[in-house]
């Protein structure tokens, strides 16, 4: 249905895509795979007319096309949902879905928006997708996952032949992913061609009929899932065989470590720590060199816990002790001074400072802790940035480029670098691997384990249970904004799932 062949794209001297091809067929879900920076996003931008290729052809139903803008490609029947929700949070769900093409009524030249009709059509659309969302709610008042579903509903509301989904599942939990897949299967069977970009291997095998892999801007191959088992897929993406570390192989000395940990005084303790409407009081200890995983669904209180610990929100009950000393944070700066660091979940809103350079983003926390004076000299800044760019393998042309131009995974690494530069004692990571490719994920986790071996305490929050299991010395399970329980290292995924799902007594 949609064929792209021989696509080249250069930004200045940098070649991003070279001779890439992609063939989408009607009635198929096609997975586009590749590491961060492999060129997936650029290819999508070309398909949707955001940028023009330097060479190559696009054809839709055999007709050559050259969409000049996202609007033009939408008119051609190519609809897209981007990785990060880009709708207007201040408008209602219905207004977002119809933004730019509101149904009208009245006389020519004096047309009012047909509100009732818009609501009616929105309800019908949401019902088709089995979404129970009130169309009159403002989008910003809904959780990110629901916003993502609204974005998909918007993409489907135009008569699309081709639907492109750029990491639509990165902020969805399992049940939401399943309901999305049900919708996608229905759409596929109605003859839509669907392009699906994701980092989750299991989702590829759950839904894709065909897989195209890109690596470093080149086309690696096209397969059916049956031809390409998971290890082969990873090898194709990475170009080398990475060992996906499993829980058994990580630490032989784990039991000894556990004993040592329990003997030491905790670095950070929570005692009946909580806040009204955010988090039911809970207690928790973090020892030096310990990785404590936090598992739980979206909205289970994971992020609230992190924000309260870091002083971003005010706790109103219990105490927080750092090295046995009770402290009360009213501003993150106080937490930073005592050696805490926090990589937030919403990278774009709370993490990166988009138009500042990679270098300035990396030194920001260190400089903030040092205060206005003394200023870290530019030469020193560059050296520091360069060190972390190499240490974490951040793919940036140079440290002076704006961080907004990096891919998601590299932004995440730069944020980690920002905090590592402050040599923290306690590192809180909220969904650090979201939107990050397999190899980078593994690198991030290896880095976290290395830091823990050097004595850092890590609170690792993730909705991917296997990750939490693999990395943690202890697992805290959250449910309904309270601590459901703790599990030791070596717990099984089923145990965690049971604890997450257990109905509140």
């Amino acid at each position, binding site marked *: 249905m949609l064929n792209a062949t021989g696509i080249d794209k250069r930004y200045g*001297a940098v070649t991003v895509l070279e001779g890439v091809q992609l063939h989408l067929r009607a009635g198929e879900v096609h997975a586009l795979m590749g590491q961060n920076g492999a060129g997936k996003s650029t290819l999508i931008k070309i398909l949707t007319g955001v940028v023009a290729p330097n060479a190559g052809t696009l054809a839709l139903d055999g007709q050559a096309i050259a969409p000049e803008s996202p609007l033009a490609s939408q008119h051609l029947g190519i609809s897209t949902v981007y990785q990060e929700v880009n709708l207007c949070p201040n408008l209602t769900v219905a207004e977002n879905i119809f933004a730019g093409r509101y149904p009208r009524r009245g006389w020519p030249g004096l047309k009012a928006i047909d509100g009732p009709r818009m609501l009616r059509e929105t309800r019908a659309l949401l019902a088709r997708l089995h979404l129970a969302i009130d169309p009159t709610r403002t989008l910003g008042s809904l959780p990110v996952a629901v916003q993502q579903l609204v974005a998909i509903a918007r993409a489907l509301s135009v008569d699309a032949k081709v639907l492109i989904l750029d990491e639509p599942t990165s902020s969805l939990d399992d049940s939401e992913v399943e309901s999305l897949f049900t919708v996608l299967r229905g759409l596929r069977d109605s003859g839509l061609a669907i392009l699906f970009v994701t980092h989750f291997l299991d989702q590829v095998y759950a839904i894709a009929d065909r897989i195209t892999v890109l690596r470093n801007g080149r086309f690696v191959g096209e397969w059916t899932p049956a031809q390409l088992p998971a290890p082969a897929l990873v090898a194709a993406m990475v170009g080398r065989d990475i060992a996906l570390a499993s829980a058994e192989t990580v630490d032989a000395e784990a039991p000894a470590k556990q004993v040592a940990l329990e003997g030491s005084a905790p670095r950070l303790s929570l005692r009946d720590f909580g806040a009204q409407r955010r988090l039911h009081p809970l207690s928790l200890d973090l020892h030096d060199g310990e990785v404590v995983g936090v598992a739980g669904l979206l909205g289970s209180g994971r992020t609230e816990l992190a924000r309260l610990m*870091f002083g*971003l929100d005010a706790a109103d009950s219990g105490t927080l002790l750092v090295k046995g000393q009770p402290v009360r944070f009213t*501003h*993150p*700066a106080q*937490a*930073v*001074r005592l050696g805490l660091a*926090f990589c*937030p979940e919403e990278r774009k*809103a*709370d*993490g*990166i*400072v*988009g*138009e*500042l350079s990679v270098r*300035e983003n990396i*030194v*920001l*926390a260190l*400089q*903030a*802790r*040092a*205060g*206005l*004076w*003394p*200023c*870290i000299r530019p030469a020193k800044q560059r050296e520091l940035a360069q060190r972390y760019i190499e240490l974490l393998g951040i793919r940036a042309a140079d440290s002076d480029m704006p961080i907004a131009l990096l891919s998601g995974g590299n932004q995440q690494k730069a944020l980690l670098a*920002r905090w590592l530069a402050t040599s923290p004692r306690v590192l809180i990571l909220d969904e650090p691997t979201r939107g990050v490719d397999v190899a980078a994920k593994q690198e991030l986790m290896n880095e976290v384990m290395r830091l823990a071996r050097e004595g850092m305490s890590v609170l690792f929050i993730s909705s991917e249970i296997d990750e939490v299991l693999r990395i943690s010395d202890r697992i805290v399970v959250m449910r309904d904004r309270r601590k459901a329980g703790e599990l030791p290292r070596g717990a099984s995924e089923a145990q965690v799932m049971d604890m997450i799902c257990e109905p509140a007594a």
Partner: protein
Amino acid sequence: MTTHDMSTPAPLPAKQTPPPPPPPDSIWLRAARHPLIWPLATLALILAVNASLNPGLWHLQWRDGHLYGSLIDIVNRAAPLAVVALGLTLVIATRGIDISVGAVVAISGAVAALMMGNAVAVINGALVHPSRFPLALVVLAALAAGGLCGAWNGLLVARAGLQPIIATLIMMLAGRGAAQLLTGGQILSISYPPYFVFGSGFFLGLPVAALIALAVWGGMTLMLERSALGLFIRAIGINPRAARVAGVRARTITICVYAFCGLCAGIAGVIVSSNVKSADGNNAGLLMELDAILAVTIGGTLLTGGRFSLAGTVIGALIIQTLTSTIYAIGVPPEINLVVKAVVVFAVMLLQSAEFRRQLRAIAFRGEPR
């Protein structure tokens, strides 16, 4: 056409190795990309127009140990605007705005005039104009009044969470009212001679007002170069939430920036009231906030925060003052004065818009292969 025509270079020798090193950008190319090039070009253009109509523009002379001339006059008159605009630059860089600076200029002048009083005394048979308080205290009080107004703005913005334009709109109205209250709706004359030094005095042959502006500019540049303030202000302007998570004291810095902007308006108030030897609660600094915003914008600072240029602001203030002087020099009738100014400002802003220049180029080079 000369033989030195560089537009069609000779073909390169064929022996060059396949990956040629990227050509080093010529100094002209780099200059053309410098963000200050357009404001500077604008200033040069307006000066050229002025000079063609007023041949005496470049004429500087040394008289009675002072430097005189039209250029010095322009610089001197631009000084209060430059000081106000410099303070405003930092506020705008945090994605804020302060439209109360004009009113604060009036308050500061009024405070200074009240502190001095307008007494006449006869000492040893000579007529003298004493001041109620020492000069240092007078100036300090005027500056403190400005700083306090600014700090109040900052508190409303950073603590109470008001939108900057609303918070400072309150101060714009209330401040103008306070200035009128202080002066009793009258124009208070200032007769204490030592105070006149700020507006019309000379130091080492140079006008004091211009030197004050230079000192403010220099001090701010030094502060921004040597400390991390510039980085923090830009981070706050681009993404205040992320800045806070990174441990930047965003609120404190915001309040300080507004307070500093008020202080700058206070300094300008002293210069203005000293220059006209009176404090006018109704008209001092009237609409100055708009000129200041214009100066900041012409200088290349983004109203959306995150990018700012102090040098650009100074050039912007000079552009506006030169424009005003030129309009007077050409002899434009007063009634169409503002219209002419608006047209010129419109042209300047269009020229500075990268988008507009791109469209111009597209029209100019239409049909030619790229």
